[in-house]
């Protein structure tokens, strides 16, 4: 299990290859790897986005990403997981999030990667502030927040 919050542009595939080589080299029971990469689009809600500031709540973010990974490892037959997430000033096409899971069989990896992403989207304390021609704006979440997220 590996989690990293990254404050500068990063190469997600190189990170993945390095982790696999250093940590999973001898795991010959791996049959499946499911990866999701989220990158910054240059258009959102119809406006051109020049750049984006990714804010987070450091201590809570780390602990939530660990929790999400652990829950997923408990639920599926997962050999390992990594979550990398960018913070700071992001430009269009930059990688924002990489989630990868390894398992023996494909169903576990598919389900796990997707669940990690959904949990990250609704629970991990990150916030996006976009810079457009009209100025700055905080991004609104797309979907309803999940029920275990309580509000004041």
């Amino acid at each position, binding site marked *: 299990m590996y989690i990293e919050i990254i404050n500068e542009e990063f190469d997600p595939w190189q990170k993945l290859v390095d982790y696999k080589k250093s940590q999973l080299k001898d795991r010959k029971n791996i049959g499946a790897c499911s990866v999701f990469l*989220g990158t910054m689009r240059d258009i959102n809600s119809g406006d051109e986005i020049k750049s984006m500031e*990714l*804010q*987070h*709540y450091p*201590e*809570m973010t780390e*602990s*939530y990403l660990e929790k999400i990974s652990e829950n997923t490892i408990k639920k599926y037959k997962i050999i390992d997981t990594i979550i990398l*997430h960018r913070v700071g000033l992001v430009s269009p096409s930059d990688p*924002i*999030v990489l989630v990868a899971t390894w398992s023996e069989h494909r169903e576990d990896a598919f389900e796990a990667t997707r669940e990690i*992403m959904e949990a*990250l*989207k*609704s*629970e*991990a*304390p*990150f*916030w*996006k*502030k976009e810079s457009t021609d009209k100025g700055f704006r*905080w*991004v*609104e*979440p797309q979907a309803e*927040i999940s029920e*275990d*997220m*309580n*509000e*004041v």
Partner: protein
Amino acid sequence: MYHSLIIMVIVVKYFASISDAVGKTSEKIVLQHEMTVGEVWTDVSKNIKYAGKVMTAVNHEYVDENYLLRDEDEVAFFPPVTGG
């Protein structure tokens, strides 16, 4: 019998649009009596304009508005998250 005097100090953190609305990222607040997270929010938000949803965490865990604060708790108020 004495009426016990409760004095608790909590740290409050604000993020994203809520931090913009409050005009600060964190502050220390002294509580003279027991308070829930919801009561603290009512207090700190009484002079600001913020119409959106508010998420609350105490010591890096999501809690609901009825969570009763203890001395040295770290409270956070923030809008729904938008990472990933």
